[in-house]
């Protein structure tokens, strides 16, 4: 096992790549009662087309299948895996993102046993025609729940505007139609392709002895015979040069319009270090200009264009990236124009030095607060690792950032040709309720 020490942070990461290719990271956190473990495959909603390794054929699978597979992994011949965790009192769960699927538990006792349960159920698929059909009702209701959620709706509308038919716009859970088409054979194809240990990462965070954790994992993996797998071939269309639409709109039973807008990255750097620098620069200028303490944030509220929920975020993966601005607004179109105008001004004039320095300090403090949450640090650590970045080194990327570089990133990103917006309006009918 190899230890990387982060002296200033008083943290260490132990890592080892097992013979079957599984990458294991252990972050000891003294004094914590809970141990959190996340077992993650580099496989998410954007992975729709790939070569199935056994037959070496190229296949295309229905939208939402990575998430469907996540649900189905919890069923085994002997029943529901939640029951196995429940025996020790551990809390188990799972989640699917655009580019990853994570299975997790947190426990305060019987760590070895829970690790075994986690590794074993994720490495043992059990799909039948019956249990696949049954899941469609459950996931159907999950999709319906999100359909009624304005935050979700406005976000995926924006992704549709940015990416059109590019997979980043696929709803993670799929649609009622797309999941209706899923069969157990599809699930096995995806499982065989993406759940090989060499495509997976195990992260354990807690008050643990790294040597004893790795022994449990090693012994467990050595009992299983995995044939070596060559790198997975995935097929993505070319990232569209421009957004497919500059505005998408719809209606829901809500009280106030909700709006999101932003800029798509035209291309994404293949070098992870440069991506990490860009991410740091993007997040910093967005905070400096639009954070809660900025004059602009207050002005948007005072001018009646936004409320305190106005926020910004930046997403950058190996394949695509975009910024997002917005929140609730009674005048969404005016808000968009106001923010675009301000961005153009700052792109020309640059971010004021004092705001830059302040946001930098703030980012350092926020990073430290992440380290106080075992689950938080594990999830961010994993997400960054899958994108070939090291979250614990992000403090360095931040310290090294210069104002000139940041202004260059701002100018480069704010490109009208990459702009898109999404609005969800209230229904025409009053949102008032009737009882009967």
């Amino acid at each position, binding site marked *: 096992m190899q230890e990387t020490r982060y002296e200033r942070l008083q943290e260490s990461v132990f890592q080892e790549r097992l013979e079957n290719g599984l990458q294991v990271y252990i972050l000891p956190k003294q004094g914590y009662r809970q141990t959190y473990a996340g077992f993650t495959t580099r496989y998410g909603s954007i992975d729709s087309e790939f070569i199935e390794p056994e037959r070496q054929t190229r296949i295309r699978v229905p939208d939402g299948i990575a998430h469907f597979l996540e649900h189905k992994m919890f069923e085994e011949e002997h029943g529901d895996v939640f*029951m196995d965790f429940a025996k020790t009192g551990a809390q188990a769960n799972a989640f699917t993102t655009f580019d990853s699927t994570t299975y997790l538990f947190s426990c305060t006792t019987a760590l070895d046993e829970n690790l075994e349960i986690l590794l074993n159920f994720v490495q043992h698929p059990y799909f039948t025609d019956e249990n696949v059909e049954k899941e469609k009702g459950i996931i159907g209701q999950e999709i319906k729940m999100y359909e009624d959620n304005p935050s979700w709706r406005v976000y995926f509308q924006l992704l549709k505007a940015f990416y059109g038919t590019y997979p980043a716009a696929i709803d993670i859970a799929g649609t009622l139609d797309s999941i209706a088409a899923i069969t157990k054979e599809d699930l096995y194809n995806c499982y065989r392709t993406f759940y090989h240990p060499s495509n997976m990462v195990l992260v354990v965070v807690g008050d643990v002895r790294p040597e004893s954790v790795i022994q449990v994992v090693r012994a467990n993996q050595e009992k299983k015979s995995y044939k070596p797998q060559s790198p997975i071939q995935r097929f993505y269309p070319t990232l569209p040069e421009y957004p497919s639409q500059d505005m998408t709109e719809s209606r829901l039973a809500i009280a106030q319009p909700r709006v999101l807008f932003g800029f798509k990255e035209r291309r994404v750097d293949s070098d992870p270090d440069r991506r990490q620098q860009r991410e740091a620069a993007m997040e910093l200028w967005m905070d400096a200009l639009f954070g809660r303490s900025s004059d602009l944030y207050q002005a948007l509220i005072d001018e009646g264009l936004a409320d305190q929920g106005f926020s910004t975020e930046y997403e950058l993966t190996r394949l695509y990236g975009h910024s997002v601005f917005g929140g609730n607004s009674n005048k969404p179109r005016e808000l968009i124009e106001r923010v675009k105008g301000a961005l153009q001004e700052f792109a020309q004039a640059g971010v004021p030095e004092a705001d830059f320095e302040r946001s930098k300090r703030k980012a350092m403090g926020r990073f430290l607060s992440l380290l106080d949450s075992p689950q938080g640090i594990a999830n961010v650590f994993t997400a960054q690792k899958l994108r070939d970045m090291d979250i614990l080194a992000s403090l360095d990327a931040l310290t090294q950032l210069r104002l000139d570089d940041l202004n260059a990133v701002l100018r480069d990103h704010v490109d009208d040709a990459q702009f898109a917006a999404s609005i969800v309006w209230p229904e025409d009918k009053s949102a008032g309720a009737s009882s009967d």
Partner: protein
Amino acid sequence: MTEWLYDDLGSVQLHVLPTEKYKMVSVLAQLERPLQRERVTATALLPQVLLRGTEQYDTQGKLLRAFDDLYGARVGARVNKHGDLQTVEFTMQVPHEAFIEGSGQLFGEAIRLFSQVITAPKVENAAFRKSYVEGEKVLHQQRIENLVNDKVSYASERCVQEMCGSEPYGLSRLGYLEDVAQIDASSLYHTYQRILQESFLHVYVVGPVDPANVGAILRRELTADAGPRNLRGSAATASVSAGEGSDTATRPLAKERVVVERLDVNQGKLNLGLRTGSSYAADDYPALIVYNGILGGFPHSKLFANVREKASLAYYASSRLEGLKGLLFIQSGIQIGDYERARAIIGEQLEALADGAITDDELAFTQEGLVNQYLQSDDQPFTGAVMQMYKRFTGRDRSVPQLIDEVRRVTKKDVIAVAQTVKVDTVYFLRDRGV
């Protein structure tokens, strides 16, 4: 578990938990009032107005920039509802200086700013600054209107309102649209002064700190130099009690009520409100916790297993306990046409529990799951604060180790005894407008 240290600073009650496991120092300062229709709206507006500015930093921008300069010290304020009480909760998190080179005395500086938010807000002629109050009134009205947007939380809030309409707990956490208009800068300031005079300020500090130093800083910033706005030394209310609403949990029960509400929604939300014969103060409270766990607190629970896994009717189907009041709420999201079936399956689970249809596994898994949750709560800074608050509200002193012990000792018989007191009060169904 680490021990809380307590210091009586008069109107300020200080609780400190020194621990090296965090990199951040977390602070919670809390004022507690009985929930009342006359005051609920004004109280809910207060946090936003207080964050608008202080005497020293008279705009929100200046104030928050001062916090940001302290390596992103995070300040927040919100109102909350605990049983029949309303709380104003101020929070702050600041990195410990040891982890940032050359950062100086972060904690002392951050506490000074934080204290000013509470004791020295921007005031003009014995009133908050008018433009701040008027601006926040508009935003608060929108906030109330926007409660309908998230249908999951909307349905659960509506169920509480329908069920507890005549009790303080049935009051809306954010207050009422029509009452917002009645508030002005002067009346709101007086409301705040009264709250400060009538309530202790309970302050909790958790993190890698020296308790003596924390005590000295808090004494200086919150009690000594605050002048006319000083927090009162001999607050009249030694403890807030929930008043008359608190015993409604055991009042005789009427027939269950069904409320159907129609909006343009894709998914139906079926929520049930139930009354039980127990609550936080009662001896059989641990049995009630276990009851709720078996019914719907976990993925192994009856609701998840039957409504979701067996019948495939829902993505979420669970129950939660309002411990102070002894109320239980069930929530699920279902296809609108499945209402009767889902209602029936939920009813069967309640009957099964009352009939004693509880397996050894169900009991053991629930006990282990609860113990795990209690132990994990030790990793969240303010678990102790919540238990001390509940003690003030109910007079019942409980601790995490004690609860763990009591939950472990609960038998099937205990659970069945509680189950037989559980009655459905309100069935709330949010559905589409139909034709």
